[in-house]
């Protein structure tokens, strides 16, 4: 069974002589990734910067990021999982036929070279984007790449990292882990955290109509989710906090305008490599911060009767 082998971006900056971007378009979606963290940086170990590094881009179409790559590999749409699995087999010298390789849009020559680069670099790093993690196969595609990276450690130093978008989504992940043990997809309906993606993840919950009120903050599902999910948000009391009036605000029973984080609200945000950074707001907002509003809702709820029956046990063996 695999695992997750990763590092902070500073390690990539200092050491990574071989970098793969898979299913992402950093040139347009994370514009400073190349210059600040990866291929363009010089370091004591890679004094010539770009010249000392090799970059491979894997994607289903040639994006602007391809210009920055030494090699662009165009994988057939929906074949990422197959291609990564082929690579896992090839690094172990298992036989895969040419026809099977070509079915992913690659050739043996190309993959032989890639495997050779992966095994013989000094420090390899794979970044994967939503082109990988949000297409058919979803979390299994990410798991495949993480496993490949872990397995490459039999030959050299190799790590992998998701290219998180969406602002501070990493912070949510990190905080939920320390407070609940789980990164997302959690229920507290038994009085303690339980986890089951697919059961407690929001799209599934909304599409099945499994919740009867929604509190939405720092997201606009009214614009991004499938229609049945949006329909359910319209049916139930939805509460929305956002600096703007969003699609979700328009379908919500309650909208509260809040100060935008990092611009007018202070605090902390986590970078994609799970490093926390302080925010330095330049402006003073006429609106309260998210933190303040949610705290006040919490305080308001404290005044109401608690939902758990009296005399319920204080500890028990978890059940899932």
């Amino acid at each position: 069974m695999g695992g997750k082998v990763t590092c902070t971006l500073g390690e990539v900056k200092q050491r990574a002589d071989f970098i793969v971007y898979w299913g992402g378009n950093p040139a347009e979606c994370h514009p400073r990734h190349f210059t600040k963290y990866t291929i363009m940086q010089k370091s004591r170990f890679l004094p010539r910067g770009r010249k000392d590094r090799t970059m491979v881009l894997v994607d289903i179409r040639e994006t602007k990021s391809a210009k920055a790559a030494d090699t662009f590999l165009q994988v057939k749409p929906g074949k990422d999982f197959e291609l990564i699995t082929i690579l896992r087999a090839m690094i172990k010298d298992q036989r895969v036929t040419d026809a099977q390789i070509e079915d992913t849009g690659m050739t043996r020559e190309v993959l032989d070279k890639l495997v050779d680069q992966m095994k013989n670099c000094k420090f390899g790093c794979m970044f994967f984007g939503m082109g990988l993690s949000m297409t058919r196969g979803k979390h299994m595609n990410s798991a495949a790449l993480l496993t490949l990276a872990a397995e490459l450690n039999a030959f050299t130093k190799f790590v992998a990292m998701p290219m998180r978008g969406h602002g501070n989504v990493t912070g949510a992940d990190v905080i939920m882990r320390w407070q609940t043990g789980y990164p997302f997809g959690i229920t507290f309906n038994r009085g303690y955290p339980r986890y089951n993606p697919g059961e407690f993840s929001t799209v599934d919950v909304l599409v099945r109509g499994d919740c009867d009120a929604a509190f939405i903050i720092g997201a606009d599902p009214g614009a991004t989710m499938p229609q049945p999910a949006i329909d359910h948000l319209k049916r139930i009391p939805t509460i929305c906090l956002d600096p703007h009036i969003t699609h979700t605000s328009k379908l919500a029973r309650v909208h509260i305008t809040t100060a935008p984080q990092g611009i007018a609200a202070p605090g902390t945000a986590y970078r994609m490599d799970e490093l926390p950074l302080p925010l330095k707001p330049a402006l003073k907002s006429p609106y309260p911060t998210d933190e303040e509003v949610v705290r006040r809702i919490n305080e308001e709820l404290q005044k109401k009767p608690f939902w758990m029956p009296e005399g319920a046990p204080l500890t028990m063996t978890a059940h899932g």
Partner: protein
Amino acid sequence: MTLQVVNNATCTFCGCVCDDIQLHHDEVRIHEARKACVLGTAWFLNHTAEKKYPVALVDGKEATLDEAIEAAAHHLHEADMPLVYGMSNTTCEAQKECAALADQLGGLLDSHTSL
């Protein structure tokens, strides 16, 4: 008019969370975000300290913050299975309050990650 400067400000638009941005502002609007990329620049310049929207809306009508907080607490308290969702574009401090909210409510807690 001379603009005020904030050094080493942090941009939360994408997961890079660059913390070397220099913001030039007049307290209402950010006029320049040096070192920021195109996405970051748009992010900083598109938010202002102007009061463009009502403080709160309850059932489509303008409401005070107190009224909105009371209404929010009421709906959440009544629900048998409330959901707390999102938390991408917000601070860790607010995220902690959200986790506390779901814990206190006995509800669901989920972020963008599950998409």
